[in-house]
């Protein structure tokens, strides 16, 4: 093969369309006769509904229909449990999932009570003022520890306590390890709530065509196939009568794969009732309540070590905020539990969590999906241990790394994909060394920092490690076709939310077929064009769908070689595929364009041998045995204004190992974006709920997102440790950037304020919080 496509920094195929505003997003869908939907949402977080009066709202001109729970009849059902609890021995689990419209009581602010369908969104919102709901306010469950007290109000009245689940996992014997340790450190750590705040909010257009008996739904979902299957079942339709299209989506990050959002089932139902298309576009205010969020956890963690820094064991008992319902099962806390172990040898581990129902919006995975917390706890424990043992922060990590020859490395607990937590591969020390070199660790510590501190500056450096389980099953598929034009189409079931699939999948196919990447047309997220699949989540697109594309493209390659070999009467080994042509190696005069081969493989006349498939096409599926473990190191230098407590990131380094890299530009983009979200999570973004469960900052005026000015340029480099679990050797990279940033911030701040012994045990931070922590630390000195 002369030209290589895999691994090249090829510019994205989709960008011209996206950058010039010509890509289709859900809100671009305009249909004749389309109606618009708004939802009446509860202002209260916890209240019993006494009465709902929609009579005057129905009178308003332009209002077409108003539905409350009882209008839905049998269609009113709690949503499905997306991920059942994993097969672990010590498990308590109470399934409570969201409902389309609340019937008896509201369990979080913003829960939908009524659905208004009107001629325009303006009128629909006007009608919100005409709906009168009489509530009986109840005490809200907000704080996790208070939620578990005996006299706590109950989010779900039929449960004895606000416990969604309780899971314990064990490796070795923590008690023994602690008794043999030279040092045991115990601390409490807090992580607070944020929201993914994707650029595009959610949106749905549903259109029932009575003549063709066909339902089409445009949906900002990360999992169109599962939505199709579920809607068909709920509505009593055949899956062939339902088409779900996930067009271009302005960011997914996890919350767009909560199935089913009430709006998803309600719009599909309403178009069947009304026989007219209906549209709902979530506005930013709704997004703060109605789209899922993440990450309140409180950890009581301990680490046991030998004097030389060797980890003997870790114990972690934590509370996890599931919000009002838990449709996504235990994915987030299991990820926290499993990711905590990191790249280190932890021979003994006891981890127990309680997932708690609260009167807050629902929690489901958001980029990192619980991994942040695990990394935060482990890295903080190591920082504190290093300080106590007077070992360099980096050195204590180095001493505990799993060594390359120890892979596959079995951590003996169960991961979110129900498989044992076995790291397939990894090589941690070179990545660490490279990061130290790029950030200039030694020189900074020895020369720059003391010098700048002498001049009155507060400046800190930090280095943290993490691993990320990526690329989990079950499977994805792809169909690769050489069309009569000679161009290639690749269809896969997963949707795209900005990941660059139009380019990276094209590269995978191009590599096999020898066609320019721009000649590979990618279709994603249309259930009529690909029937099977799971979705885009858990850093799995490249691994699972990517390998399916690879397998299908390899089959097509074989078909091309066979056909061309027959035509040119040469052995297949003597052929090469170049620029969309098959030819005898080194003999361009023999070249046959793919288009001609495709036409011949699909003749209009003549007999075809039995068992032959038409065309140059193949469909393949790939399901990995288990996830591939990516890893990385982040390092940064941070300054803090000692008077205003504003921080500035001076330098940020990422050294990352996600196995084979398909496209370094796209990877860079994923890392940059992830780090930006991580910085937001660590220092800017925080959802403030008061004691009544009211959200105090449900707008981008008060919920601060990092801007281009707050996110530094990131210096990144890669180590390639191919995964043995898939033919391409790739690992996921979608979440990596976001995962360790909180831990990194905390270490850098502690380092900058080490003279007063600052110990940061919470994320996110703000200048205000930092001011308080520094004042406390100063008092303690």
């Amino acid at each position: 093969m002369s030209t290589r496509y895999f691994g090249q920094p090829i510019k994205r195929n989709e960008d011209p369309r996206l950058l010039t505003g010509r890509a289709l997003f859900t809100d671009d869908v305009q249909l004749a006769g389309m109606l618009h939907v708004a939802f009446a949402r509860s202002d209260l977080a916890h209240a019993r509904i006494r009465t709902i009066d929609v009579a005057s709202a129905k009178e308003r001109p332009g209002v077409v229909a108003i539905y409350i729970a009882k209008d839905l009849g049998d269609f009113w059902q709690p949503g499905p449990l997306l991920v059942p609890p994993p097969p672990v021995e010590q498990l308590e689990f109470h399934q409570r999932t969201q409902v389309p419209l609340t019937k008896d009581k509201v369990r979080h602010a913003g829960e939908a009570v009524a659905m208004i369908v009107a001629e325009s969104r303006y009128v629909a919102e006007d009608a919100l003022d005409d709906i009168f709901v009489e509530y009986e306010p109840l005490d809200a469950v907000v704080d996790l520890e208070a939620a578990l007290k005996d006299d706590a109000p109950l989010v779900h009245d039929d449960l004895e306590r606000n416990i969604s689940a309780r899971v314990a996992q064990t490796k070795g014997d923590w008690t023994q390890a602690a008794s043999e340790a030279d040092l045991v450190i115990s601390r409490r750590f807090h992580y607070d709530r944020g929201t993914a705040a994707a650029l595009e909010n959610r949106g749905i257009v549903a259109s029932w065509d009575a003549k063709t008996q066909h339902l089409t739904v445009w949906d900002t979902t990360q999992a169109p196939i599962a939505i199709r299957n579920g809607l068909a079942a709920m509505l009593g339709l055949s899956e062939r009568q339902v088409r779900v299209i996930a067009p271009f989506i302005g960011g997914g990050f996890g919350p767009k794969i909560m199935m089913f959002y009430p709006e998803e089932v309600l719009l599909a139902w309403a178009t069947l009732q009304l026989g007219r298309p209906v549209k709902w576009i979530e506005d930013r205010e709704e997004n703060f309540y109605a789209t899922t969020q993440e990450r309140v956890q409180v950890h009581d963690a301990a680490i046991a070590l030998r004097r030389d820094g060797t980890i003997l064991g870790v114990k972690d008992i934590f509370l996890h905020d599931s919000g009002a319902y838990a449709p996504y099962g235990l994915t987030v806390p299991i990820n926290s539990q499993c990711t905590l172990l990191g790249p280190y040898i932890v021979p003994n581990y006891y981890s127990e969590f309680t997932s708690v129902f609260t009167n807050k919006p629902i929690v489901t995975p958001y980029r990192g999906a619980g991994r942040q917390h695990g990394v935060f706890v482990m890295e903080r424990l190591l920082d504190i241990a290093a300080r106590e043992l007077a070992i360099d922060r980096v050195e204590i990590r180095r001493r505990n790394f799993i060594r390359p020859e120890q892979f596959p490395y079995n951590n003996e607990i169960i991961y979110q994909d129900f498989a044992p937590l076995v790291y397939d591969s990894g090589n941690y020390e070179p990545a660490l060394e490279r990061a130290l070199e790029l950030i200039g660790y030694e020189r900074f510590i020895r020369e720059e920092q003391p010098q700048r501190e002498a001049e009155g500056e507060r400046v800190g450096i930090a280095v943290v490690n993490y691993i990320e389980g990526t690329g989990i099953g079950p499977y994805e598929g792809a169909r690769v076709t050489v069309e009569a034009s000679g161009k290639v189409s690749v269809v896969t079931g997963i949707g795209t939310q900005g990941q660059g699939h139009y380019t990276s999948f094209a590269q995978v196919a191009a590599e096999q077929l020898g066609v320019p990447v721009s000649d590979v047309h990618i279709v994603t997220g249309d259930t009529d064009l690909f029937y099977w699949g799971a979705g885009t989540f858990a850093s799995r697109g490249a691994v699972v769908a990517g390998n399916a594309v690879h397998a299908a493209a390899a089959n097509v390659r074989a078909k091309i070689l066979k056909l061309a070999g027959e035509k040119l009467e040469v052995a297949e080994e003597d052929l090469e595929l170049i620029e969309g042509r098959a030819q005898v190696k080194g003999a361009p005069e023999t070249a046959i364009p793919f288009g001609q081969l495709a036409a011949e493989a699909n003749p209009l006349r003549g007999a075809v041998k039995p068992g032959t498939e038409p065309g140059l096409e193949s469909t393949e599926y790939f399901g990995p045995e288990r996830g591939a473990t990516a890893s990385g190191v982040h390092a940064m230098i941070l300054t803090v204004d000692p008077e205003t407590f504003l921080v500035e990131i001076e330098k940020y380094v990422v050294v990352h190992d996600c196995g084979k890299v398909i496209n370094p530009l796209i990877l860079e983009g994923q890392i940059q974006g992830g780090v930006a979200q991580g910085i937001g999570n660590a220092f800017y973004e925080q959802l403030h709920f008061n004691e009544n469960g009211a959200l105090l900052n449900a707008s981008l005026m008060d919920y601060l997102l990092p801007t281009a000015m707050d996110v530094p340029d990131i210096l990144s480099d890669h180590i390639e440790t191919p995964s043995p679990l898939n033919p391409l050797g790739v690992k996921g990279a979608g979440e990596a950037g976001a995962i360790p940033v909180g831990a990194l911030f905390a270490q850098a701040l502690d380092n900058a304020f080490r003279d007063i012994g600052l110990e940061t045990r919470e994320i996110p931070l703000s200048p205000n919080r930092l001011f308080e922590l520094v004042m406390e630390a100063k008092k303690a000195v």
Partner: protein
Amino acid sequence: MKPASFAYFAPHIVEEALALLAEHGGDAKPLAGGQSLVPTMNFRLAQPAALVDLNGIDELFYIREDKNGLRFGAMTRQRTVERSPLAQRHTPLLYEAMPHIAHAQIRNRGTIGGSLAHADPAAELPALAIALDARMRVRSATGSRWIAARDFYVGLFATDMRPDELLVEVAFPDLPPRTGWAFDEVARQHGNYALCGAAATVTLADDGAVERMRLIFLSVGEGPVEAAQAQTLLTGEQPTPMAIRAAAETAAAQDIDPVGDIHAGPAFRRHLAQVLAARVLTRAARKG
């Protein structure tokens, strides 16, 4: 996030706008740059029955010199002030502070009059107007009057204007001789409303002592807050680092009574007020 329905009027002369305001009483609102009003309407926190759009009234867009200083038409865009050589020469404090207001895109639309009339306690312009002894000219269908900036602000998002009155002009006098100025603020991100901000002018006497000083805070009260006790303390003193520190401490401890919000508690706001007061007084005294 769609506004409630409203009537829309686009007058071309001030008299027409005033007539419309008179006709609709308190139900009409002037629309300037829309950078505060439109979001409030989209949240349905404001539901005016009518909007009187000032953007077509050419006579409200100007920056003019007169013998006392500068006059700004109410509709002068914030971005225009930011780029005005006249503003730089006559009202350097205003000029220096402009970039702290929101983002360039917002300043392209946002007006000087809109911000002054909106009376957001976290806004820069009201504080600057008081620090610089500006005067506002307001008109109604029946008359016209001048209001000193320090009398213009009467509470949270509240001014001395009646609903039928329109702010048409603001006059900023030139600074007295030997007067230094400074502005500074702390915002979590550039372009966001400040957690705390401070504007200062310091006029020095021939012996170098402080003859007159103005220290105005934003974001620590219901409107711009004048640091009266700090002003008294420093007046007549040499502006030494120690005297400035004492004034800043007094300002933070006694002149303000900040409430906390999700971005900053009262203690942090006081801390910032002290830091900023010391910074702006030092800089202003040095320029004086």
